């Protein structure tokens, strides 16, 4: 098991190294000139050259990359071209909001989607099955930003039930800053008004993210469960007269769990992209929201940090998926 994990971890490091190469190339070999952009409109060539030197952009690309990797190994993501603040501090400030929204949504998605998927598989052709099939095709065609606007229109402009901007309704309602995860901070300080306020702010972005992917999760859970249901050992169990509920819980779910976890891991990539859009629409002060501010001004260090952190979150969760799969299935870890 530990050998398997070490190998997976080493592979992840290699991939991350590759990712830094890709992202670095992407943000440097571009037509837009960050130095010129930072210097502002109408800056003299001397000023642009000075800023380029200051940012280290006049060095050879390989040197720039090595410097970047050296800084990265020390936990520094460089400085923002605009605010001149270290990007790492900014990232750490915005990251909890992103993780809180994306992971809570993902958790709700799994908690609702998986049981519905099992239900759709065991009750083939019944209402759950038919409705989720139609919803699955429909929701793959539904633009997430449009869904968000519909929800905003109904629940904010029309019903006035939920707020649509930010994470909290003001400094007075914000929980004491401990971890930066508002729900968690409010819970450990027993701050009920803050907790309610945070959850109310999180409601619409969360519903947007869950609703836009729920049917897909239900469908893929259903496929995984159906695959196992058609196995010979399930037929044998049935022939032996094992009750249906026992077959589902003891035989089917055990074996379907691995594929379901793998498929859900892929859905996480979608969730990260989706939460970036939700952050923009609901002015949720997360990493994507911060990055979009930087993107407007070709702030290459911010763009790089955004891409690297999102890729890293995805890599780490994939590693977690591998661990869970190995725990569920001894065949994998003994390979």
């Amino acid at each position, binding site marked *: 098991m530990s050998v398997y994990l070490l190998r997976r971890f080493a592979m992840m490091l290699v991939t991350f190294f590759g990712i830094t190469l890709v992202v670095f190339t992407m943000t440097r070999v571009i037509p837009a000139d960050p130095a010129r952009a930072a210097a502002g409109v109408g800056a003299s060539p001397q000023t642009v050259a000075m800023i380029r030197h200051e940012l280290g952009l006049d060095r050879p690309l390989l040197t720039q990359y090595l410097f970047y990797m050296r800084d990265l190994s020390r936990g520094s993501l460089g400085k923002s071209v605009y605010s001149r603040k270290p990007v790492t501090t900014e990232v750490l400030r915005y990251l909890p909001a992103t993780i809180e929204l994306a992971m809570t949504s993902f958790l709700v998605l799994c908690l609702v989607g998986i049981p519905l998927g099992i239900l759709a598989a065991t009750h083939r052709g019944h209402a759950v099955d038919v409705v989720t099939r139609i919803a699955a095709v429909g929701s793959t*065609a*539904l*633009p997430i930003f*449009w869904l968000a606007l519909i929800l905003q229109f109904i629940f904010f402009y029309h019903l006035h039930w939920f707020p649509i901007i930010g994470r909290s309704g003001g400094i007075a309602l914000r929980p004491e800053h401990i971890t930066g995860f508002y729900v968690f901070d409010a819970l450990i300080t027993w701050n009920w008004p803050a907790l309610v306020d945070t959850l109310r702010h999180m409601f619409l972005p969360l519903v947007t993210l869950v609703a836009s992917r729920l049917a897909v999760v239900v469908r893929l859970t259903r496929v995984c469960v159906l695959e196992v249901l058609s196995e010979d050992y399930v037929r044998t169990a049935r022939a032996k007269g094992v009750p249906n509920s026992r077959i589902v819980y003891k035989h089917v779910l055990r074996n379907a769990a691995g594929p379901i976890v793998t498929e859900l891991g892929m859905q996480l990539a979608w969730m*990260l*992209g989706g939460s970036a859009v939700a952050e*923009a629409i609901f002015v949720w002060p997360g990493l994507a929201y911060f*990055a979009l501010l930087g993107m407007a001004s*070709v702030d290459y260090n911010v763009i790089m940090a955004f891409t690297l952190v999102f890729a890293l979150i995805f*890599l780490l969760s994939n590693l977690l998926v591998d661990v869970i799969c190995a725990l569920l299935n001894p065949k994998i870890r003994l390979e």
Partner: protein
Amino acid sequence: MMPLLRIVARWTLASRMRLCTVVFVVFILAIVAFGPLLSPYSTTAINASERFLRPSWSHPFGTDEMGRDIITRVLAGARLSVLISASVLSVTLIVGVVVGGVAGFYGGLVDLVVMRITEIFLTFPTLVLAMALAASLGPSLGSMILALSIAWWASYARLLRAKVIELREEQYVEAARALGMSSWRVLFRHILPNALGPLVVRITNDFGGVILFSTVLGFLGLGPQPPTPEWGLMVATASRYLAITPSYALFSGSALFITVLAFALLGDEVYESYRSTTRRD
């Protein structure tokens, strides 16, 4: 051309659901081709005296914040979105064929290196990579297409490679090589035609998806800039006037939803029929 047409016709008429789906897609494509010709209005000309008009006979979807006819812009947006998706998938397909073909044919070290690079691209969440690329390239129509292509090619390369490796051992490929054909000729004349099935499935499935991703970039301001009639951009503008004219967001968003739905249904239909034919073999 005729045999292809006959195959498509026979496939379409096989079930009622399929016929409906194809009619739906053809209807969308007809709008893409002829829609903009139907409207007497300009997509960009500003008309300050006609801002935020309610839907009427002369402006079926009403007018926007600059007094432009919304339906005219929605129709132009359909054409733009379909063109974006077609360009992205063309680039993706070409890169996928070349990269996947090279990796599959040469094998060994070439395969190892090429596929490691491909895998790195596959580990990025697609939308995040596309956003970062579009931002680095500077927001415009061209960089949107390029960004989406770079974020999308890797899975095609992997598919092609798998197909090449699978077909490489077939006797007709061996025969062609024994006759002294070049690798590229074998790839294009013997392997690609036999990999057509999964490719068609992938492309029909991805067509709507690329439209969706492109509108997300447009919505975030990372695509074409105003006054381009791009759907994502239009919904973003409409979102600012949600309280004044919800119909603006409703119409531009519905057009996008219906178009992507048509392609999603077609993709689903093609996928199901491909799966059932391969299973029978």
